[in-house]
């Protein structure tokens, strides 16, 4: 069958092996082809048979690929797409005895729970906190990996570079519960390492985790600590693809290290930076659950309650399913909208964007 596909019909005409193959094919099609051939002409018939045959062949040879795909596709349908049907609960009055299609529509053309959410003081605070914490993460945390990657790229000693990478990637692999455990001990007001040192140096104790303003600061700082090393990976990958001749040419022209970083490395990183910036903007209203939940404590809930913890408290704990589904839907939709806006702005500015 393989050889048959390789024959070039137009050039070779009807030579003997070709006729043999064609007749064999006709035999397989139970001779029905002979009747059609009078109507359609030889060449059209040939290509049609070829196509049919290659389809049969194709599925014969590759059906196992579809077999492999069954489980993953079923996974995506069941655990990613079917939950989307449950989104209608946001527009309906949840009832434990009815299934989702039978529940009654909520008031105000179905938008009652959205209105309720926005008149809920806790939700407004959660929304504000989510935006505030994510903005701070973005503004303070986003540039740091870029700088680190540029510096790592300049490190002359390969052994030291490997050790550095190993160590600064490590915090990424610690869970937020562990980090919160470390932070509780490190920043403890009376016997934490940081405050002991501050006291010995003659400064006052700082309530890192027990006072809202300081908590926000600590939250952002711990986020940077956890992710700064890991986030350099993608930039380092991009930096290794830069043509070394660019640096050599710049050296010949007398450019120093800083000028090379500014005029070669940074511009080469620009597409990567833009893509990551778009992704980050798409997540500006998205909220991680583990991080605020693990780091919070009763003294700072005014700044630590975010949308994800609001959904947990009021949905899973408080059983207000319609309200919290509405909140979740709002969050997802805003996320997609932000992503689209950021992407189109980037494209308008002449960047490649994410798709």
């Amino acid at each position, binding site marked *: 069958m393989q050889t048959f596909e390789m024959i070039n019909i137009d050039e070779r005409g009807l030579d003997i092996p070709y006729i043999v193959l064609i007749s064999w094919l006709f035999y397989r099609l139970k001779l029905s082809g002979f009747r059609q051939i009078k109507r359609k002409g030889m060449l059209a018939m040939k290509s049609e048979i070829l196509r049919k045959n290659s389809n049969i062949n194709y599925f014969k040879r590759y059906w196992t690929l579809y077999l492999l795909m069954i489980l993953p596709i079923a996974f995506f349908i069941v*655990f990613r797409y079917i939950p989307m049907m449950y989104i209608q609960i946001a527009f309906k009055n949840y009832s434990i005895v009815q299934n989702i299609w039978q529940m009654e529509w909520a008031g105000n053309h179905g938008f009652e729970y959205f209105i309720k959410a926005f008149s809920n003081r806790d939700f407004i605070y959660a929304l504000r906190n989510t935006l505030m914490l994510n903005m701070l993460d973005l503004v303070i945390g986003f540039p740091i990996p870029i700088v680190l990657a540029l510096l790592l790229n300049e490190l002359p000693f390969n052994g030291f570079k490997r050790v550095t990478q190993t160590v600064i990637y490590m915090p990424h692999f610690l869970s937020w519960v562990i980090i919160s455990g470390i932070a509780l001990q*490190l920043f403890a007001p009376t016997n934490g390492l940081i405050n002991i040192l501050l006291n010995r140096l003659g400064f006052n104790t700082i309530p890192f985790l027990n006072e809202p303003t300081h908590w926000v600061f600590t939250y952002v700082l711990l986020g940077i600590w956890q992710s700064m090393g890991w986030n350099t990976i993608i930039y380092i990958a991009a930096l290794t693809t830069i043509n070394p001749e660019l640096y050599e040419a710049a050296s010949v022209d007398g450019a120093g290290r800083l000028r090379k970083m500014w005029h070669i490395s940074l511009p080469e990183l620009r597409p990567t930076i833009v893509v990551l910036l778009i992704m980050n903007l798409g997540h500006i209203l998205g909220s991680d659950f583990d991080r605020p939940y693990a780091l919070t404590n009763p003294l700072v809930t005014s700044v630590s309650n975010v949308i994800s913890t609001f959904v947990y408290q009021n949905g899973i704990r408080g059983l207000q399913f319609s309200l919290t589904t509405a909140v979740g839907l709002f969050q*997802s939709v805003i996320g997609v909208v932000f992503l689209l806006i950021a992407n189109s702005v980037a494209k308008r500015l002449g960047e490649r964007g994410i798709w």
Partner: protein
Amino acid sequence: MRNTRNIKPGDLVIVFIFIILILVCLLPILNILARSLSSAQALVKNEVLLWPVEFNFDAYETVLKDSKYTWSLVWTAILTVICTIVSMVMTVICAYPLTYDHLKGRRFFNTMIIMTMYFSAGTIPNYLLYKDLGLLDNPLVLIIPNCLSVFNMIIMRSFLDGIPQSLRESAEIDGAGPIRILVSIYLPLSTSVIATLSLFYAVGRWNGFSDALMYMINERRYHPIQLLLYNILNNVTSVEVAAQEGFSTPGLSDTLKAATVMFATLPILIIYPWLQKYFIAGVTIGAVKG
């Protein structure tokens, strides 16, 4: 070329910056380690910085005697192994067919999968689905719903895409089917990316607690270690033995907390350095192509 050039003062500045960063990453963990190995009195007297004072293993012994904690450690380890295997199988069987350029429906599958990265239904729809499927308070909820990560699948796919097509074609001519090619050519060539993604999945499961918090409310026996640790740290449940044996000084409970943190951290600190040489290569490939 780089190694032969002279060391400039700029290099020393950069090295200095990174030494500080390394210290910033390591010292907090050293501090916890020191606290977990010190005596309670030393902690109360603010003597413990980076080195244990009045060195002892009491806190570790106390934690190990707590059957709830040790069971949780064992259970989480079992769970992590199961999850990693299931996830890796799913990732491979999802990524491999998508590397066939002429696979019919490839674009459709790709779009369908990538879409879920940008839009998700949210916590509550998932919760209600698990409720309808009978997964609530069932240990399976910790394994199945997140057994395939789109992000990891893309890394896997990019890596497999990088394996030369000619290898596959020559195997096809020899009569090997897709599964045979996967098992005998593709998998042996992708050990680095498999090690990387296994690490990601394993760490994700070891570190995860929100799914148990939300979907395993009544089944405390199967709570993973992180959730138990969270409850200990926030005094929701203190390490029970501490109360039993009559310890009430705040210092001791701090050494205990430090020891519980160390127990939950150690497996990662032990496994991570061995696997990281793979993932620097593995992630880099995925990132460049992704």
